[in-house]
């Protein structure tokens, strides 16, 4: 049993690694000095065939997309072609390199998140991404033209902000996963019994470990704000139903930081489409196209995140309810959190170097 468990853990870690391996994408000043490029770590290994296929489609979509934009300038009736293509572009863009799905998937791995909620997160973050794109282009178009703030600068700023958030979020996530264990090791029996008592509660592994540990997290992280919330929820963890709501609220708060981290960096495809659309007075077309793109992205991210969580659940189930199961659970959660942190750091470093 134990052997299987270990194998499953490694299998899962490998899978997560592979899933995120080719996501190492970062800001790069484009070779023309105008616009931003997405420099990427090459996709090699098991998935390269699939990734090449995805990218080939993404390219042809992008080409058709720019073609449809031009066609729409002449004939407003071509709007629906543009919307359809944008949707397709979104689907494939999210399947290609990008940090969104990595953050959402890892977040879901690291937390007890219901699948339905995970899907919701994917949609909200994709919509936020669309909103950011609209906001950036809107601002640039209406106010920033003629100032020294260029679109390239604005995008770069948002990108850095997004990666900083991803990093902080990962650090916080990792802390919440590790601190209780450390505290348990150091603090001994008291913390341990608390965690044991909370075990039947849905939010068991995250919750109820050590109040001190969560408090400790507060000053160091930006997310400190809701650490008190956590403690409160855990303090009442043994009371019936209503407290579940408190737990829910906690989930949402942390979920929001994941959403913000992802959504703050607008997708370059959306920016380009919007710029062209606005300049040519195709307001409705631009907005609809970007929303369609977000929808496509959300669907793909949902599917990937669902895959990740399903794999986790299968692994935990295979390992059974005993210690092995718990250990796997913990390993996956900590691994997921570490992954978010790592991803944030890699992206941020690359972005700042550019």
């Amino acid at each position, binding site marked *: 049993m134990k052997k299987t468990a270990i194998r499953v853990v490694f299998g899962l870690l490998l899978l997560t690694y592979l899933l995120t391996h080719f996501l190492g994408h970062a800001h*790069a*000043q*484009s*070779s*023309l*000095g*105008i*616009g931003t*490029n*997405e*420099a*990427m*770590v*090459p*996709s*090699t290994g098991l998935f*390269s065939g699939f*990734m*090449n296929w995805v*990218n*080939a489609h*993404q*390219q042809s979509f*992008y*080409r058709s997309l*720019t073609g449809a*934009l*031009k066609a729409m300038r002449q004939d407003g009736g071509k709007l629906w072609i543009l919307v359809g293509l944008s949707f397709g572009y979104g689907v494939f863009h999210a399947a*290609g*390199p990008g940090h969104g799905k990595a953050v959402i998937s890892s977040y879901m791995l690291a937390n007890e998140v219901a699948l339905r909620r995970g899907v919701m997160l994917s949609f909200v973050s994709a919509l936020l991404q669309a909103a950011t794109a609209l906001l950036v282009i809107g601002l*640039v*178009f209406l106010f920033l*033209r*003629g100032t020294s703030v*260029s*679109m*390239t600068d604005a995008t770069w700023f948002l990108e850095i902000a997004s990666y900083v958030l991803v990093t902080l979020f990962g650090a916080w996530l990792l802390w919440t996963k590790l601190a209780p264990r450390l505290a348990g090791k150091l603090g001994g029996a008291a913390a341990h019994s608390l965690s044991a008592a909370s075990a039947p509660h849905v939010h068991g592994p995250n919750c109820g470990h050590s109040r001190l540990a969560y408090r400790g997290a507060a000053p160091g992280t930006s997310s400190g704000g809701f650490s008190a919330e956590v403690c409160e929820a855990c303090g009442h963890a043994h009371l019936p139903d209503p407290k579940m709501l408190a737990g829910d609220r906690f989930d949402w708060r942390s979920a929001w930081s994941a959403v913000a981290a992802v959504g703050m960096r607008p997708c*370059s*495809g959306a*920016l*380009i*489409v919007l*710029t*062209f659309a*606005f*300049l*040519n007075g195709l307001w409705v077309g631009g907005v609809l196209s970007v929303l369609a793109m977000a929808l496509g992205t959300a669907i793909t991210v949902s599917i990937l995140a669902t895959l990740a969580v399903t794999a986790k659940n299968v692994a935990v189930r295979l390992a059974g309810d005993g210690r092995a199961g718990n250990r796997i659970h913990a390993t996956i959660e900590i691994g997921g959190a570490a992954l978010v942190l790592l991803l944030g750091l890699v992206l941020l470093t690359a972005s700042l170097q550019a």
Partner: protein
Amino acid sequence: MWSGGPAQVHPHVFAEARLEVTVNPDGTVKALRNLWRFDDVFSSTVLMEFDQNSDLKLDEAELQEVADTVYQSLAEFNYFQMVSRDGKDVAMAPPPSLMVDFQDQQLMIIFETTPKEPLKLAGKLAFGVYDPTFYTAIDFAEDEHMAVAGLPANCTRSVVRPDPDEILAQNQSTLTDAFFNDPSGNNMSKIFATRLELSCGAEG
């Protein structure tokens, strides 16, 4: 269609390009004339970004700003040029400046470079124009768009368009190594570029 590049990165910018190689009377390469006409969508991004006075046009000063930005950036990438003779890289002098224009809502960039050392038309010469980062897809739609003015009789001209799928299939492991050894891709990407090849026999 767009014809190159490992599929890892997709170009955001498309340019229809023309290259003209001019030849000196003494049979050396005089200059490489490049003309790039960028796609409408990228051009509109440029317009948005550089239209300082918000009149939705790029006037002279604004065009100059575009030229400076691109010029600086391209310097890092050897102005997207790859010239070699018998497989050895030939150093090109940077162009003195870029000419930038905006016609029919399309950005145009024109520039001319010369070899640092006199470059004799002998042996096998290759001229490629490509963006090593694959941000820009430089398209030579027709073979005639890579031309030689005053090609000596002892030279033959051909345009080579590598098939990216084939290259990827054949060089999977080399490309992987190349990526990790040279993340900027400056060295490996040239094999994807459309190139003009001149084979020149002994002068006679």
